């Protein structure tokens, strides 16, 4: 069964048909050809599929594509600003906050959402914000460092 949906995807309007029983993760990867959003556990545990729904981080594996109707979706592909890496992305590169990279899109989405809500988070607040994003490689220390550095660079930009 398919349903017509209209929503904003990474800043552009989209009007298309979506299967009623498809998750947002699969819809983005298969129908929208946006494969940055990863498919991990598919049960809300790992955070690899994190996207922004109306600027809030959600697990796209626990969302139906049809729920996007009338809403704004941002994926990792929509995080760059004016063709430049977002400060969170840049700091992930500079601080070596990734190894295999599978968790990275979800981590970055969670971090971007955190900094929009709380521009100067403590380390505990950073760790709380990414508690739903699992990483098998880095041990998290570099990720926490990168998010802290991004917060600093963003606050310098505003000042």
């Amino acid at each position: 069964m398919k349903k017509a949906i209209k929503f904003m995807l990474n800043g552009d309007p989209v009007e298309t048909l979506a299967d009623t029983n498809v998750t947002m993760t699969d819809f983005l990867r298969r129908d929208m050809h946006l494969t940055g959003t990863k498919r991990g556990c598919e049960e809300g545990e790992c955070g690899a599929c994190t996207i922004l729904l109306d600027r809030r981080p959600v697990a796209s594996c626990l969302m139906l594509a049809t729920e996007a109707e009338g809403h704004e979706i941002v994926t990792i592909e929509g995080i760059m600003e004016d063709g430049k890496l977002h400060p969170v992305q840049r700091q992930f590169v500079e601080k070596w906050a990734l190894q295999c990279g599978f968790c990275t899109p979800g981590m970055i989405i969670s971090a971007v959402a955190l900094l929009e809500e709380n521009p100067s988070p403590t380390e505990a607040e950073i760790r709380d914000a990414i508690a739903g994003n699992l990483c098998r490689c880095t041990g998290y220390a570099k990720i926490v460092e990168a998010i802290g550095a991004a917060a600093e660079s963003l606050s310098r930009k505003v000042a």
Partner: protein
Amino acid sequence: MTMPSFDFVAAKSLDQAAEMAVSLGGKCQIMAGGTDVMPLLRDRLIRPELVVSLREIPGLDKIEFKPGEGLRIGALATLDQIQASPAVRDNLPAVAEAAHYVASKQIRCKGTMAGNICNASPSADTACILIVMGAKILTTKREIQIGDFFKGVKKTCLEPGELVREIFVPELKSGEGSGYLKHAVRKAMDLAIIGVASWVRMDGQKIADCRMAFGGAGVTPLRALQAEKHLKGKTYSEALLEEAAVLAAADAKPISDVRASAEYRSDMIRVYAKRSFKRALETLRS
């Protein structure tokens, strides 16, 4: 992941959703944040013909505090909105803390408190604090005392097609405090091994009234009635609390599973009964 085929509709009002649920019965699945429903759909544990989303119903996500009365939490307010709301944090901090205990940011940004209690998991993190606060559940049909709400694992007293509109939590009055503490293996993203909530009204050093409830040690969240009885009307002391905590553990009917053994659960109820009661004492309203 392919899920079984079903139709999807975003309800325009709670009454419309309730009508569909009544007329279609078991073929209709009501969904709010979907954080419990989606895994069930995926694992084919439910096979509805129609999924009815409540998310687009206007006005159901309100969080309002009225001094002299209490807090009204709309059925679609997300756990994230509840834990971040100044109205909740300032007036009923333990409710904000319980909401924050659920899963992760990603789950809280979609999951609701109404969904958390309607799903009726014995370890639902928001259940115990609502029980000790004497919350009321306002549905499409009636008002339900939270103490009558839970009927078993995944079972509530809601009738077919009866939907939750709002959760009402009475305010803390002068001399009253409450707390909820959860014990889990991981701090985040882990169902509680057990959780204990306490509410207390102090009259100087005397415990004028109190309520205690625990989750994860029975088919529903349960009141620790023996412990409450032991505490009421007495002067507070560490020794008295220890005696009550032992009684709370005796009230529990825990099971052994992958998370913990029954013995461990009972003992953790003893420990967390004390901690949550102390937390309630720390947060007494002046």
